[in-house]
């Protein structure tokens, strides 16, 4: 299996906390600082609360795959077809139901990906950046 190596474009600081979390070995998502409710992906405006402030919170490294797909032909801008195949997971942490984090399946030892499969977060270094990896738990 390959792994996608697409540079992280962070012209908007809205997403920096996610990558700070990966560097610290954590999965971090945004919550409304006042209500504590998950607001993921970080929105420019929290619905109905334009003054709301977001803060980053670490979530459980354990969870399951909401869904997945194995990318055989890369559609990323540029030529990334030497990085396929890889399996993308939409991961739901155990303590944040409905929050989905995109990452790749790693250390699968030939286990077929499946919706609902138990997974554990593991950051993966790709080139000069990290992405979220998920290994069978």
């Amino acid at each position: 299996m390959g792994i996608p190596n697409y540079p992280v474009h962070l012209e908007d600081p809205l997403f920096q906390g996610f990558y700070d979390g990966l560097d610290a070995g954590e999965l971090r998502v945004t919550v409304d600082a006042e209500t504590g409710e998950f607001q993921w992906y970080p929105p420019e405006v929290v619905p109905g609360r334009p003054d709301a402030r977001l803060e980053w919170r670490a979530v459980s490294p354990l969870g399951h795959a909401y869904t997945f797909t194995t990318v055989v032909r890369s559609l990323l801008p540029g030529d990334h077809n030497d990085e396929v195949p890889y399996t993308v997971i939409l991961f739901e942490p155990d303590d944040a139901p409905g929050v989905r984090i995109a990452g790749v399946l790693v250390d699968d030892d030939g286990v077929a990906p499946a919706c609902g499969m138990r997974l554990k977060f593991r950051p993966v270094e790709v080139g000069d950046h990290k992405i979220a990896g998920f290994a069978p738990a």
Partner: protein
Amino acid sequence: MMKPGKIAITGVGETPFLRKGEEHVMQMMTRASLAAIADAGLKPTDIDGYIINKYAGHPSEEIAHAIGAGQKRFSAVADSAGGTATTGDALRLAQLAIEAGLCKHVLVPYAIRSTKPGGVYAFHAREPQKAGLEMPAGFFGQPTYFASMANRYAHEYGMTEEEQAALPMTYRAWAAITPSAQRRDPMDLAAYRASPMISTPLRVADCCLTTDGGGAYVVSSVDYARHLPHPVVAVQGLGLGYNNYPHGVLFSQKPCTFEFPVRESAAMAYAMAGISPADLDLAQVYDGFTISALVQTEMLGLCDVGEAPRFYAAGHAMPGGKMPINTSGGHMSGGYVPGINLLIEAVRQLRGGEGARQVPDARLCAIAGLGGNNHSTTILARM
């Protein structure tokens, strides 16, 4: 709710659908528009209203100038995407304008150049949330998004490879008897399996075509349509549904990623038309991908929820089946001019006279138009 039977589609026209064409969008829109106006038995100077598609990128004055139209009395922009814009939103705006007496003949043009630099995915690459959080993880591009939906759907309802293949094979069977279809070569299960995988479980054969082409139609009052050359094909039902999820979160964060607001649009359309799904003679379903067409087939009420793979595998949507669907090959085999070629085919079927692919005595046709976070259901009736 709008009233049924007030407006009619009086003219339809299109360009050839090509894998790679030479003409730009404006040329194709003009060519399709002139064909539609002529088909209606009208002159360009009769056109006094326009519904423009924001993704086509050309304002109404450019269209009016290009076709040699008369005085413009009304124009509006369809504020939705994909098939919702071309087969639902545009018709609703046209009915409002015609019933208000603002204009008499509304032109709805559209063209797409899928082979332009950047391709059809460039739009998504500009979404900050996708660029910031999804693309580095390799989650990018429509086939990848819809493949992840297909796996979730299969997890919840079950879908074998043979059942999945039945939908593109059905649409190809219709394309094979449609002279203007872009892909007419036969597709059996072996040919389906030979189609390259893009993102599991979606193969090239599960995706809409890459098309350079255009389509257009003319909307007039039903009263006026009675004096024009073709049988009257009226808008009998029209509903739109919205889920308000921005595009940045649409494919990953919705509670159920493969749910589209079809139930809402279909309920409105059936109520306006005063019919049920069982009354339909045929349907045209926006088939960007196998999974999205399966889900819309269910939500339109053409089969039970979770049963669309079996419905197609049983041959019910094939030529001669009990509910013919995408009778010119749809977007997966006929051509991908989002929504508009489905509507054109619906009109032609209801007029009768489509030769080998004509659905006998077709009088009621539903058109399902998907536009990401919005959806339209339109019911056309031969009066």
